[in-house]
């Protein structure tokens, strides 16, 4: 199970069929019910309810100050909700001090004990459980191997690199085998490459241990890679909960569409809806906009169409007259290697971002500043948003 060469695809394949939240009979491991929390004048959490299921890798995603860390700290026992209930395994956690809760947290600052060796740090929770010395030693060895820190057990935290310290913090939190592991921005201090490696490492670890993980992060890519489900938070409330692909492809609001990845938003009014498609009139597109939508939206109601940059197709010659046809000129572009992002200014004055995959190394007609271009997208590439 510890084979680092284990293909990543495996993880995805297992996770595809994993959907306890869709099962009405499944009992959640963790349940937040109408939780409020006030700090001084500021309401950090405003009536949040959601469930986390056994074996799930759940992400709380949002900008700083959105209340995600407060929710996690409530689960660890460092904060108490002002109203509402937090329960674990069906038991209300109210009044239970942190040291009695069967969850462990990995701190953003790692909070390693500088006066103890790596082994003693990892064994800290185990000795607190009163395990015999020999068993502690065995479990520490096992955990060291799990996070690939064999041979570093006698070092002190300050003798380790940032990445190694991160692993010690992780090992210390998983060694007591908690019912649930809480990860508070666990990768924030790592550089990009190490962060990406560690994301897969975390997924592997979660699969190996079969433990429930809750991660708090402001990094949407991180949440998308590791999590089974993501709860996107905004100002103390949950904006949307879903699988990463659901959140990305079918955001339920402009906030979520904008927070997760890049998005172009077109404002318009409904001019026709037949239960499968909706047509919009918009200043940005004289030919009209069209998107798949099975809701019967009221005629004339204001809506927004969200289109991801990679769903837009860029044309150098005018395409035929169709819906979803935009024209403008290139005002900026950025070459990212795998992609080039073009910023196109429409006649309406709105700027639109289009991402074009660089499939060939040879470019026949390079696009430059001021060049006239046309953009089109398929009706199934756009999402209609009403808020």
């Amino acid at each position: 199970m510890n084979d680092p060469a284990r293909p990543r695809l495996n993880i995805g394949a297992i996770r595809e069929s994993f959907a306890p939240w869709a099962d009405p009979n499944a009992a959640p491991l963790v349940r937040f019910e109408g939780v409020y929390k006030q700090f001084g004048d500021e309401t950090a959490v405003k009536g949040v309810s959601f469930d986390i299921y056994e074996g799930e890798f759940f992400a709380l995603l949002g900008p700083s100050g959105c209340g995600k860390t407060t929710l996690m700290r409530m689960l660890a026992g460092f904060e108490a909700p002002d109203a509402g209930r937090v329960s674990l395994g069906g038991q209300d956690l109210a009044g239970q001090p942190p040291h009695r809760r069967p969850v462990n947290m990995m701190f953003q600052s790692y909070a390693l004990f500088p006066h103890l060796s790596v082994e003693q740090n990892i064994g800290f929770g185990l000795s607190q459980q009163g395990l015999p010395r020999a068993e502690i030693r065995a479990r520490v060895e096992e955990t060291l191997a799990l996070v690939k820190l064999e041979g570093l057990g006698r070092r002190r935290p300050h003798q380790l690199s940032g990445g190694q310290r991160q692993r010690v913090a992780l090992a210390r939190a998983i060694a007591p085998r908690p019912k649930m592991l809480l990860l508070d921005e666990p990768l924030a201090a790592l550089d990009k490459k190490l962060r990406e490696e560690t994301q897969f490492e975390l997924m592997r670890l979660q699969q190996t241990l079969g433990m429930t993980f809750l991660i708090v992060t402001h990094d949407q890519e991180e949440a998308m890679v590791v999590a089974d489900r993501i709860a996107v938070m905004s100002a103390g409330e949950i904006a949307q909960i879903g699988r990463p692909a659901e959140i990305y492809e079918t955001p339920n609001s402009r906030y979520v569409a904008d927070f997760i990845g890049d998005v172009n938003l077109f404002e318009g009014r409904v001019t026709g809806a037949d239960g499968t498609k909706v047509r919009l009139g918009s200043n940005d597109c004289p030919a009209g906009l069209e998107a798949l939508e099975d809701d019967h939206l009221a005629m004339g109601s204001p809506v927004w169409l969200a289109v991801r940059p990679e769903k837009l197709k860029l044309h150098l010659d005018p395409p035929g007259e169709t819906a979803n046809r935009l024209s403008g000129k290139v005002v900026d572009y950025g070459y990212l290697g795998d992609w080039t992002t073009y910023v196109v200014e429409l006649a309406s004055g709105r700027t639109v971002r289009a991402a074009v995959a660089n499939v060939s190394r040879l470019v026949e007609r390079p696009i430059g500043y001021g060049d006239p271009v046309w953009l089109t997208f398929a009706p199934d590439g756009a999402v209609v948003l009403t808020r």
Partner: protein
Amino acid sequence: MKRFSLTAVLPFVWLAAFFLFPFLLVAKLSLSEVALAIPPYQPRLDLSQGLNGLSAFAQGLDLETYARLRTDHLYVAAYLSSLKFAVVSTVILLLVGYPLAYGMARSGAETRRTLMMAVILPFWTSFLIRVYAWIAILKPEGLLNAALSSLGLPTLSLLNTDAAVYIGLVYAYLPFMVLPLYAVLERQDESQLEAAADLGCTPIQAFWRVTFPQSLPGVAAGALLCFIPMVGEFVIPDLLGGSGTLMLGKVIWTEFFANRDWPAASAVAIVMLATLIIPTLLYQRQQARMVDGR
């Protein structure tokens, strides 16, 4: 070639002028013997005699005074008594100072400033006046007994007893214990305590497993800062202690000024210094380990 650097040499010049030279003078005195002369010891170094004078001087030095210290019961008793006063006071200081420093480090910014001020404020008054104030408190008709008798309690005669010396020592040295302890406790990362709680520690267990071990450098610094000067303390035992209170500081004073036995006074001072070097070296080794380990 290494360049001559004034900043590197200056500390050595200072140490030589203000520490090494006086120390050598005292060491030389301790090897001399009493004489009815001014100053009251011999041999005297006569450099006008050249090398002969130097060798005559060197031959005049011996360890006789130290032998006297060993055999005279008074010196041994004073030595042991001083160590006892210093050790007991250091332990009391730790027991009083640690909770105080801990409370300061854990209180809010506003309270912390006030408490810090309260600890430092006594330094603004002369040390001597503060010790005299204790005489006014402890004397038979003093403030303490006035308070006790007004409450209908029996009065205490504390002044001129060992208890008064302990009170005075603990009072005078408390800031030197509190400040280094506060410095280490204040630095402590709060998230470490949360981590300890998360891993199953009650607040008391978290203190003993996380806070206390990390505060040991402060404990060592505070203990030494108090212990070393307390061994040689003179003013407090002289003013608050009784005639039976034996401490090296008093012995040195008596030998110098009452008995005019400068060699004996110097020898006592040298023995005291030699004893105090041991804990200082231990402390420095521990400090070096800490620096190494940080």
